[in-house]
């Protein structure tokens, strides 16, 4: 018994703004956290970069910090898992380990024109059947192409096999396992499914797409499952198995133990990401969602997911605070919204940069509809929260249409889950229970779970499910006729956002 108390799993979350390391115990409880932010580099409007050397230095630092705070050594760490900001793209020199350029971050839009060009006469769905994704600037493939086109002499070196590509999982794993001294060059299926280069059915790089995209296959890492031992760490964690990699949203799905088809999680942060487990079937979306790999454990069958994202959720609350000055802190939105019974007839559609899933209208811009003399700032605050709820409903409706699976309950995480009124509102408009788990750090937990499964620290997914604890549950209280009326009003408001821009660009 004394041994089991000193057995832990460490997970690294290499995120957009910071890198973190969290140490978990066998019950999935947090033992310690290390965290460090890194610089956001904005070379020009629309461009966002990270210094990959800074990120690797920070990752090493946060590991040391987390172990130190837990009062444990590398011998106590049974495995190390990795989760990461998705799609952020790096190319580095195989021989020196030096990045050839800053990493291009997922938000960076420099490949907009390139993506339109790649769509040619077919449009942005040119590779959707194979990859599940539209041609959009988020994804890694076009970013690789941009680097090869724009860094002097890089294409020749890449074709000669001197250059390695990786998303942040690959970069961290390569360095952890020795870097230039035998580091393994791998990625997992979830990260690979965000490159626009992987075929969703074969789970391998698609040579035809790589060719069309102008990406030499020599730069690409080997695609492995999300939970297996990729190699042993060197240096400070000498000998610890590096045993999982998952993109951050997929890691949250895993951490929420959404292991059965029809189970879904929604992470409410600045934006919101909703993923629905569709089991062994990669469901094509006809309603503007993405098809992606949810996870793959070892040599088991892959589990697919539908993904819908909402661009503006928490950031709308920040906008109310910073641009409008109607509240002093994000939490106060609930106080203000709770001071009235309803929205007073006002609806807020925050299409700040167009409408995303399921509409995809870039000519749309935000509106507040239904204004009368009666409406106060409190009604607007309520409309702000309802906007997040209705947008969730629209994504869920699209998912149900695509997958023909009815959502039984929505598992939520992220900062906005502390907003009680919002959670109730989401339950009301979905007409389904909304459930918050006890461990808020579902992203890191997912990476830890996958790593623990790979080394046998946990026997199977059932054992992980047994760790899952309900911290709160909101059940629908809204009358059906009110829900229908409000939804109709919301859809009317959405309609009014469209066509605001006369022409694109």
């Amino acid at each position, binding site marked *: 018994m004394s041994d089991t108390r000193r057995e832990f799993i460490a997970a690294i979350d290499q995120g957009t703004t910071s890198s973190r390391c969290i140490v978990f115990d066998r019950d999935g409880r947090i033992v310690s956290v290390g965290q460090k932010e890194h610089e956001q580099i904005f070379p020009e409007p629309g461009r966002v970069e990270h210094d990959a050397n800074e990120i690797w230095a920070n990752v090493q630092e946060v590991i040391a910090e987390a172990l130190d705070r837990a009062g444990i050594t590398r011998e106590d760490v049974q495995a190390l898992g990795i989760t990461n900001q998705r799609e952020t793209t790096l190319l580095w020199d195989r021989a020196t380990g030096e990045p050839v350029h800053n990493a291009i971050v997922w938000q960076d839009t420099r490949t907009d024109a390139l993506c339109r060009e790649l769509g040619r006469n077919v449009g942005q769905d040119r590779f959707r059947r194979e990859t599940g994704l539209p041609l959009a600037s988020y994804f890694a493939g076009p970013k690789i192409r941009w680097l090869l086109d724009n860094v002097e002499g890089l294409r020749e070196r890449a074709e000669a096999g001197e250059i390695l590509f990786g998303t942040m999982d690959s970069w961290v794993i390569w360095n952890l396992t020795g870097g230039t001294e035998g580091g393994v060059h791998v990625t997992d299926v979830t990260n690979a499914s965000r490159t626009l280069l992987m075929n969703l059915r074969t789970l391998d790089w698609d040579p035809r797409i790589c060719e069309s995209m102008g990406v030499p296959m020599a730069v690409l890492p080997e695609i492995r499952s999300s939970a297996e031992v990729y190699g042993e760490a060197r240096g400070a964690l000498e000998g610890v198995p590096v045993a999982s990699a998952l993109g951050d949203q997929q890691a949250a799905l895993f951490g929420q133990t959404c292991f059965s088809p029809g189970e879904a999680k929604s992470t409410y942060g600045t934006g919101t990401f909703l993923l629905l487990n569709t089991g062994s079937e990669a469901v094509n979306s006809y309603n503007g969602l993405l098809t992606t790999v949810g996870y793959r454990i070892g040599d088991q069958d892959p589990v697919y997911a539908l993904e819908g994202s909402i661009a503006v959720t928490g950031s709308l609350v920040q906008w109310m605070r910073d641009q409008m000055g109607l509240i002093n802190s*994000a939490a106060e*939105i609930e106080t203000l919204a709770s001071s009235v019974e309803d929205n007073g007839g006002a609806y807020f559609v925050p299409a700040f940069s167009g409408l995303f899933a399921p509409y995809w209208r870039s000519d749309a811009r935000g509106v507040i509809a239904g204004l009368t003399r009666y409406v106060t700032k409190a009604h607007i605050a309520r409309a702000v929260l309802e906007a997040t709820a209705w947008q969730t409903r629209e994504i869920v409706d699209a998912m149900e249409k695509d997958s023909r699976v009815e959502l039984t309950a929505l598992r939520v995480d992220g900062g906005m889950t*502390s907003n*009680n009124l919002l959670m109730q509102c989401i339950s009301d408009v979905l007409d389904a229970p909304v459930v918050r788990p006890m*461990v*808020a750090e579902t992203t890191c937990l997912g990476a830890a779970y996958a790593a623990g499964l790979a080394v046998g620290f946990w026997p199977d997914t059932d054992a992980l499910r047994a760790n899952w604890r309900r*911290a*709160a549950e909101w059940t629908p209280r809204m009358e059906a006729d009110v829900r229908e009326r409000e939804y109709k009003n919301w859809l009317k408001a959405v309609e009014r956002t469209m066509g605001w821009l006369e022409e694109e660009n």
Partner: protein
Amino acid sequence: MARTIQSLERAAAVLRLLAGGERRLGLSDIASTLGLAKGTAHGLLRTLQQEGFVEQDPASGRYQLGAELLRLGNSYLDVHELRARALVWTDDLARSSGESVYLGVLHQRGVLIVHHVFRPDDSRQVLEVGAMQPLHSTALGKVLAAYDPVARSEAMDSGREALTAHTITDPESFEEVLELTRSRGWAADVEETWEGVASIAAPVHDRRRMPVGAVAVTGAVERVCADGEIQPRLVAAVRDCARAVSRDLGAGRF
């Protein structure tokens, strides 16, 4: 010019005097600075104290500004901010204690539940956010009354209805409970509100060391107590959680 009320002007002068920096003043300092008879000053201070605008340090007998005054301003702590800060810590408390966790604040004449974490078993539970609990019998209420003079006077003025055979109703015993709570830093409720239910609570302070709320674990009396005693393990867990939330709100070590 309209007639003004002299005692209100004087009360305002007392408050301004006490607001001048972080200090406590004795009765004679206040009286002489404002040119008032001691008896008059004492009457003003006692009234202000009753309203929670002034507090008296029990050891030195000196006066300082009270919690209610800070609540009046815009700078009061938003309960939703409190919940957001407490989320991680209260989850952890529920997990480590195996019991449900509540965060409560003073509201009108009772305890308003602003956050509730389910007991970590698979049983069906209902979210109790927004519910009210009695001030005089619950562990949350006793902590609030022990640390917040406004809560204390609400509890003292209320009827302190006997909810079970164990409810403490007479004022002297209730004062003793508050005194005990202050001296040991936590309060308990063993079947004083609901038969078969016990709870333990500790105070949450903000950066001004104002009592802004209380955190509690609540569960079956058989689990919360062992051999008729409150389990020290649970007391330690509740106090750790309350301290962690206070630290997150900017309160220093204490």
